Structure formats: C-alpha cells, structure tokens
C-alpha cells in the first residue's frame, strides 16, 4: 500500500526498480566476460544491448514476498479447510480424480523442471533484468510444484494413482511425453529454452491448457485444485510477460535472430501442442461435468487470442504464425477423441483408470463435435460398450508404436483424411525413425542427432530395461499398485466412492 504521507522525494517506480535490480550489475574486469557467460553465443543469437530489455512488472523482492505470502496464506487456508471437512466427498465423482492423477504425474514434475532450469537462465543470461525475471520465475515454479504436491496430498490419502508420481514421471510410458518435451528444452541452449518454455509454452499455450482445466476443477467441486491453479496462474501472468518480452527483445536485437527464432517457434509450437493433446483428452473425457470442449478452448484461447491477437503483433518483426499450425487447426475436431482412445486402450498399464463415455457424456460430445463425433468416434465407443455389456473390456493386448519425437502412440490421422492414420518416416544413419505427423517429422529431420537419443518407453521395455519382459513386472517397476489401473467401473476408487456415498445410517446404527 502507498504511504499515507507523501515524501518530498520519491523515486518513480521505474527508476527505483532499475536501481534495485539492473543497476546491481557491473562489468567484470578480473575475469573474462565469456568465461562468466559461456552459453550465450553458440546458438547464433546476437545481442547488442542487454539494457534494451524491458521489465513490465517491476516487482521488487519485498513486494514479491508480500504478495506471494498473501497468496499462499489464502491457498493453504482452502487446502486445510477442504481436508478438515472431507471435501473430497463433495467432488462430482471419483472418476474426476483421474484428471488430477494425470496432472500430478505429468504436470507437477514439469513445474519442477522449469524451476531448476529457470535457475540456469538466472545464472547464465547476460542481462541483469532478464536474469532477475528468470530468478523470480524459478522460485515461482518451485511454488507451483510444491503447492500441487500439497493440494493433491489430501486426495492421495483416499484414492489410488497419486502415490508415486515422481518415480512414474521418470518411468511410465505416457509420461515420457511431457518429460521428453522438457528434457528437449533443457538440453538446448538458454535462448532456445527461453523461446520454448517462456514463449511457446507459457505465452502461446498455457492459457489453453490451464484456464479451462481450472474452470473444470471448479465445476467439479475440486476447490483446492481450482485455488492452486488460479493462484499459480497469477504468477503465470508474469511468466507470460517474460515470454513475450523475451521474444520481442531477441527480435529487436538483430535481424539475424529472426530466422532462428522463427524456427524455434515452429518447433516449439508443435512440440507443446502435441503435449497438450493429453489435456485435450482430459477436458473432453475425464471431467464428469465437462465445462468447455477442447475445440472451444482451442478456438478461444489459441485461434482468437494467439493467431488473431498475438501473431499480427509479431508480424511487425517478420514473424509468421507457426509452421504446421494449419494441421493443429484441422485436428481440433479429432484430437481429444483420438488421444483418449490411447488412454482407454492402455489404461491397464497406467496409474489412472478410464471408462467408455456413457449416454449423457456421448450426447455432450455429439453436441460439441457435431461434424465428427457421431460419424467417426461414437461407433467405436459403442463397440466398446457392447463388449462391456457382455462383461468384457477391450484393452490393447500389446505395446504401441510411438512417435520418435512427441512419443505419443501413433494415433493421429491425416489432416485431410480422419480415417487414415498418419505415418511419416525418416532415415538417419541407415536407421528408420517413425513420426506421427509432418510437424514431428520436421522436428526430427532438423535435429536427428538429438532425437535418436529418445528414451522411448516401448523400445526400452523390449530392451529389457523396465523391470522385466512381462506386463506385471513392468507395472511393478513403474510403481503401479493394485487397482490404480484399468477400467474405472469396479475399480477400488469407484467402489470406495460408492460405499462412502451409500447413505448408510449413521445415527443409532
């Protein structure tokens, strides 16, 4: 809050901020600058004036502590209240928690990875202003990781699938999708990391991924997740600003940076978009009370805000919309259905359960996807439903072919033919590599030396590196416990939920 009594001399916010942050820096004279900042030249980016970096937020350390402590006070009050009142019983349905399982296994570790690698930027970027912004983001990301662990800790006590999220992120097949994306970004140089995570992930896609998801949490009675989500998003606004400032700064510094940045936008849009497919499946299939379809979120948050708003702004610098964006648009009617099919096929080997959409859910999907659901996807769900009505459950009795880049099973179809699976191959050092799309193939062909290293879970199982050759051995190595996996109906979570809500007489019984 501002001072009640205005002082005679008060530095304006901008000037004061500069004195408290970037003025702390000095030009070293006892060691070579290249030795102090060894990583800022090999990517080919040229920076002529680090002082050209703008700091829109102007957050000093004391203000940071004050606001963040206040945010956390509010958040943990919600968590404590929810736990004390056994708030989990008020969820829309226990099946909702499958989305949260995927979240803690897939997203929470990414927050942690971001925490660690923004520390790398906070050390190695040459300008003091971006270094400080990166430092703030680094510690924020630790906050996000830890608030998520604490939020979900309460669910972990009563439901399966949450208990081994960290180990699972290192080992389980579907989690290599997000893990490999961050490993890709972290193993690149500092500028590519900045464009991949700060710009392509935080600015371009974070709204699409998190905001509708948090609204979904709210709608399904998950107040803790909504609270940490929105609370984290308020930090994300700062991170988005860092991403936007980073790209503008790099583009303004040197003409030669433009094609490099464009190629990174092309790569990282597709990489992040592919990973977001897991969120698409979550939004359309895992929320008992869906709040917004993937397609609608994609149109609102990506097509309207990014393609309609941001990219015309970047055109000024010579930047065009990401390569392959047309394919993403063409996929918006298909993505969630195809990806949930993977999860449904393979949930016997996952730390969550799946179920065939019921009548009401199908009706909602038909309404949201009038051009595609009834024709292409509903018939398959109907076939599953028929098998299940006869007491069966169809799983994929084997292991899937994975894309060498995004590591998602090769489910995606041709942009112009949704009945034909899209297969792309590349040859490198006389070895064949398979990719799921033009986007992933383009990424592979650009840096084959990198992507041949991919730790592809299916191939690792076949090499004998995942606990043993049989499914039970692999599941054990994954840390999956009895009942975490498979079909939701009849699962321990579902049975507990039914028992807890059976309305058994409590008084005088």
């Amino acid at each position, binding site marked *: 809050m501002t001072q009640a009594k205005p002082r005679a001399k008060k530095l304006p916010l901008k000037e004061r901020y500069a004195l408290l942050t970037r003025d702390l820096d000095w030009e070293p004279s006892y060691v070579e600058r290249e030795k102090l900042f060894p990583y800022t030249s090999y*990517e080919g980016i040229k920076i002529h004036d680090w002082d050209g970096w703008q700091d829109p937020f102007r957050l000093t350390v004391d203000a940071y502590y004050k606001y963040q402590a206040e945010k956390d006070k509010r958040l943990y009050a919600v968590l404590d209240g929810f736990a004390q009142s056994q708030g989990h019983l008020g969820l829309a349905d226990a099946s909702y928690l499958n989305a949260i399982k995927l979240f803690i296994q897939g997203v929470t570790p990414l927050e942690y990875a971001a925490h660690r690698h923004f520390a790398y930027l906070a050390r190695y970027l040459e300008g003091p202003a971006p270094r400080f912004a990166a430092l703030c983001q680094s510690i924020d990301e630790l906050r996000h990781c830890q608030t998520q662990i604490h939020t979900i800790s309460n669910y972990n006590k009563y439901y399966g699938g949450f208990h081994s999220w960290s180990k699972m992120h290192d080992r389980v097949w579907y989690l290599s999708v997000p893990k490999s994306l961050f490993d890709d970004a972290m193993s690149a140089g500092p500028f590519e990391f900045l464009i991949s995570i700060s710009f392509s992930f935080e600015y371009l896609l974070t709204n699409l991924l998190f905001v509708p998801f948090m609204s979904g949490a709210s709608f399904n009675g998950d107040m803790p997740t909504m609270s940490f989500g929105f609370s984290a998003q308020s930090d994300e606004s700062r991170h988005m600003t860092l991403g936007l400032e980073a790209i503008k700064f790099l583009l303004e510094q040197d003409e030669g940076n433009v094609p490099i940045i464009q190629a990174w936008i092309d790569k990282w849009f597709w990489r992040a978009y592919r990973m977001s497919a897991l969120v698409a499946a979550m939004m359309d299939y895992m929320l008992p009370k869906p709040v917004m379809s993937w397609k609608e979120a994609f149109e609102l948050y990506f097509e309207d805000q990014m393609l309609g708003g941001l990219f015309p702004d970047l055109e000024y610098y010579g930047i065009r919309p990401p390569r392959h964006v047309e394919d993403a648009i063409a996929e918006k009617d298909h993505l969630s259905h195809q990806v949930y*099919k*993977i999860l449904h096929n393979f949930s016997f080997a996952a730390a969550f359960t799946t179920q065939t959409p019921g009548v009401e859910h199908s009706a909602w999907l038909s309404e949201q996807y009038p051009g595609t659901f009834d024709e292409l996807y509903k018939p*398959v769900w109907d076939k599953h439903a028929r098998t299940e009505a006869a007491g069966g459950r169809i799983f994929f009795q*084997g292991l899937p072919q994975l894309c060498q880049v995004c590591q998602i099973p090769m489910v995606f179809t041709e942009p112009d033919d949704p009945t034909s699976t899209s297969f792309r191959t590349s040859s490198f050092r006389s070895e*064949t590599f398979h990719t799921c799309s033009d986007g992933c193939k383009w990424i592979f062909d650009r840096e084959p030396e990198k992507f*041949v*290293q991919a730790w592809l879970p299916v191939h690792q199982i076949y090499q004998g590196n995942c606990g043993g050759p049989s499914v039970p051995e692999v599941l054990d190595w994954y840390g999956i416990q009895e009942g975490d996996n498979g079909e939701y109906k009849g699962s321990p979570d579902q049975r507990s939920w039914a028992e807890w809500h059976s309305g058994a007489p409590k008084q005088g019984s």
Partner: protein
Amino acid sequence: MAVKALYDYEFPSADRAENFGDDQLVYVHWDGNPLFCSAACFRVPKAMPFGEFVAGVVAPWAGSDPDFDAAAVAGWRLFDEPLQPADDASLADLGIGHKALLHFSA
C-alpha cells in the same frame, strides 16, 4: 541441419539394431480398424518365419477385437509397398528389417 552444441554432439541411437541382438522391432498396423489406437510394436527374431509371426504374434494381439477373423487377414504391405509373404519365409528374407512397418487389413 545439425544440433547446435558446445561440443561435437554425437550420440548413438537409443534403439539401434545392435541393441536387439538377433531380434528386431516390427510395427504392425491394422488398416482401417479404429478400435486399436495405433500400430502395435513387437520384438521378434529376424529369423522368425512370417507364418509363425502372423499366427503367434499378430493374431493374439488382433484377437482382442471380438470381430477379428484370422482367415480374413490380407493385403499385407511393407511400409507403402505391397507384400506377398510366403509363410515359411523369414522376416529377414522378406526384407522386413528393424523398425519396419507392416500393414494388413481384415
């Protein structure tokens, strides 16, 4: 284009053929069947006869579709090329190498 790195960035492929000894990976895709989300990946001996591969490897997988009819399997393709496999020819003889993609319809 090469990866930009501070040193000579060369690493062996994680799934190179030599890691699988006398075996290799083969992918099999059932064209036009949306029940299976993707092609399947199998580790099989290079010397395995094609007939045994179909009966012992492909059929048990495809059989999880209740409508699967082993007798109806036809239209084999290796990548995009038609393939007329003799049951006793080995995968290697048929030119089905490491990480080859086979298609069939049924």
